[in-house]
């Protein structure tokens, strides 16, 4: 695989119609066969569109963008979305800046009593902060990690479940679940853990690297034996959709 910057430059030139016919064909064959290349193309499409919106393209690039890239209705819709997003981000940034400038200036009178109360309050806050820092658990949890791929079956028979043995001092298990290629695009994910004894628990997952999500399960929530995970995606229309298949692992 070529270096990432070279790949990105090649994809960018392809999208702007700047590759020769032969090079373009080669790119398209790579797109069909190579997941990473295709994923990179999707990201660079957005980045090019954002640059266009923000006036960041060179004059030649702008012409190619308008002539070649914007040729289809899909891309024109994406452009409208990019404009909306750009406006939102700018408006939100401005709102935050304005809010910052309206933080009321604390005015206090000059009495000795007030100064004394203020001093006591400051000392109290400092002591409280020190106590909280002392009590707070370490920022970094000690997690064991396991990567799982989906099994088409919901039944564990015939499945070789990956085994994990948690170290004594582990705070929990971080599971990286590789999603199938055509998973639904989700706003967020929920993972349901089911133990072989039938007990179920639900956890929120976070999007991780492309096509995978990550979920952390505290040690206290894990039981020895065979466990399965089902993933549910919250779609943009607000409905939850289960991603077919299950992930299996055994806690030893």
């Amino acid at each position, binding site marked *: 695989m070529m270096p990432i910057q070279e790949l990105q430059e090649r994809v960018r030139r392809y999208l702007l119609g700047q590759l020769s016919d032969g090079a373009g064909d080669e790119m*398209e064959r790579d797109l*069909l066969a190579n997941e990473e290349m295709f994923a990179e193309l*999707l990201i660079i499409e957005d980045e090019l569109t954002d640059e266009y919106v923000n006036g960041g393209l060179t004059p030649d690039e702008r012409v190619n963008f308008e002539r070649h890239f914007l*040729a*289809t209705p899909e*891309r024109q*819709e994406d452009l409208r979305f990019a404009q909306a997003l750009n406006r939102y981000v700018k408006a939100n940034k401005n709102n935050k800046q304005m809010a910052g400038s309206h933080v009321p200036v604390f005015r206090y009178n000059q009495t000795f009593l007030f100064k004394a109360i203020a001093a006591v309050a400051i000392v109290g806050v400092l002591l409280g902060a020190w106590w909280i820092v002392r009590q707070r658990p370490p920022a970094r949890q000690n997690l064991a990690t396991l990567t799982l791929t989906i099994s*088409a079956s919901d039944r564990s028979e015939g499945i070789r479940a990956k085994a994990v043995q948690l170290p004594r001092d582990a705070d929990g298990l971080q599971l990286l679940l590789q999603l199938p290629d055509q998973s639904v695009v989700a*706003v967020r994910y929920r993972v349901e853990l089911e133990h072989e004894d039938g007990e179920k628990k639900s956890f929120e997952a976070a999007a991780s690297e492309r096509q995978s999500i990550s979920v952390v399960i505290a040690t206290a929530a894990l039981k020895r034996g065979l466990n399965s995970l089902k993933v549910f995606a919250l779609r*943009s229309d607000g409905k939850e959709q289960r991603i077919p298949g299950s992930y299996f692992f055994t806690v030893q």
Partner: protein
Amino acid sequence: MKKEWVLTQGAFDTLLEWLDPDREQAGRKYETIRTRLIKIFICRGCLEAELLADETINRVTSKAEEISKSYVGDPALYFYAVAQKVHLEHLRKPHTQQSAISVETADNLLSTAPVGLVEDFEPEYRCLERCLELLPKENRYLLERYYQLEKQAKVNHRKLLATEMGIAVNALRIRAHRIRLAMRQCVRTCLEQEPAH
């Protein structure tokens, strides 16, 4: 006149079998190929990208029985070869319009403002605001911060954000893209549900 070939379940089953002996895997490969073919046709400026992708798939399916016995290599590349022919035929049709802007017009635009930008994207903006409310706070925060600033300031800002989050810059880029994609889908759905003006 050529006899129209009709897609049958048997032919489709043969295609899937050729893609992968496991039916579910085959289904996923089929969807992957279809999605990527559509994208390629879009990148080539085709207004009917989905139709062309489906035409490609139909042609491959019609020959699946024959191909599966003799073809060696990645099936996706066979689809590509057929897609090339489908595209050429499409270009030869007299009604085909490949580009939104003519070459002459584009050449005159070099010194003017971007013509692709629209002034009215209120529906998209309203939908985006609604969609953003569905996001977990941390994802919304990431999106807002990631898309701030422009040019070199943006590059430096994103490096800082990645460091704050404890992830590589490219991992941040991917994460932001996935959230943006979810919002894009959400806005699309929202727009479909908007009452017509």
